[in-house]
């Protein structure tokens, strides 16, 4: 089954932020696009290369971005996600790639007024 949040967001209403975190040697590559209206992520999508655990973590994390301010992405806890998805310890490093992408999203400069 294709993850519901897989894909990329084209330009449109609001501001589209695109971030990337890459660590192919760890088996993980993630691109996230988020549409922000006001101070809220109204829509988020991802493209990922990696194992099924990594793709599942991307889907869960990106789905949780929606409806929140982009700055809340820093609250993402890889350990909590690992527990939730039953990610084996040897794959934990891949979740740090998800964390890197979300931190980059949270750090994106605010919309100029």
């Amino acid at each position, binding site marked *: 089954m*294709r993850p519901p949040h897989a894909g990329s967001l084209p330009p449109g209403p609001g501001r589209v932020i695109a971030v990337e975190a890459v660590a*192919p040697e760890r088996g993980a590559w993630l691109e996230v696009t988020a549409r922000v209206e006001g101070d809220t992520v109204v829509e988020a999508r991802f493209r*990922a*290369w*990696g*194992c*099924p655990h990594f793709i599942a973590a991307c889907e869960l994390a990106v789905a949780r971005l929606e409806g929140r301010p982009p700055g809340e992405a820093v609250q993402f806890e890889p350990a909590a996600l690992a527990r939730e998805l039953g990610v084996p310890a040897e794959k934990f490093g891949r979740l740090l790639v998800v964390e890197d992408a979300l931190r980059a999203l949270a750090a994106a400069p605010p919309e100029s007024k």
Partner: protein
Amino acid sequence: MSGPVYLDYAASWPVHPRVAETMADCLGPEGPHANPSSSHAEGRRAAQVIEQARESVAALIGAAPKSIVFTSGATESDNLAILGAARAGRDRGRHLVTSRIEHRAVVDAFRQLEHEGFEVTWLRPGPDGRVAPQQVEDAIRPETLLVSVMHGNNETGTVNDVAAIGTACRVRGVLFHVDAAQGAGKVPVDVEAWNADLVAFTAHKLGGPKGIGALYVRAQPRPALQPLQFGGGQERGLRAGTLATHQVAGFGVACELARADLPEEERRVRGLRERLWAHLQTVGGTWRNGSAEASLPGILNVGFAGIEGESLFLALDGKVLASSGSACNSASAQPSHVLRALGLSDLACQASLRLSLGRWSTEADVQRAADAVAEAVARLRSLAPAAALERIR
């Protein structure tokens, strides 16, 4: 047609119905239930079944029956050959030669010998996955005791010129061991032509049961081997333990069946494998690992740009049963040591899939598998960042 397509013959074959029938007869109330080492009539009957099977097993590889030692499988055969020959000959030399593309049963045996003080030269194959006879010749020293180079590789199917390697060893007085677990029963094997002293193979990769294999031990001159286990002195003192009559009988029938239609099956399976490769090339961004020319008939190892092996596995779940370019333990997802030795990056190893065909594979299987793989690859590529598709190959 609703079940998954089984394309993992290199891992294990389904048991041939006639093998199962023979084994069931052995285990039935009228079967040869006595210990084949017993000297009474029932023991002799069981021993007769064993010796008949030994003839069939020997005939498959062009050997004399007395040169066959039954074991629990190819892993034990490889261990007995390598550890046994090295330990028995340690006073004559402590240098050994093998390659980086051997099965773990061989690799780990040599690593054990390194712990025991032997020096091992690990040969790197060429880009086609083959170990050149010249490499072996160059590696042999006066103190070299044993060379071990596999016949057909279990991951890529690439076949080494073991006859030329065996000649190089023979003229230098070095023992030569061959892991033939993949090739026996699929292509003609002639241990005499190979100049091999020790050849390991197994039943479950040619339609026999798991748990039974054989080690060919040249009869004349017979290489010295130190046994790995001790007990009743069975198998000429090389492998103690009561032989499992039903397993041995099943192995014998599997060898007879394989030998009976080997040329036709080799042609048929090779044709199916090439049709599968032709289908998969239409997916785009594919490459073939190992040699297409010098290869076992049933193994195809393919890489798909932009694909992660474990995800491909999951995407194929329930449709195609195959093996990945990672180690058996998917949790560790270690890249294959064989593909790495061919010069592939870790990412390319993980983007690779081994599809292996055998006796029951059909044209319809090939089409269904190719369709399923194409669909899964397209789906995963549609998920991946565009830049990853360029980089992951």
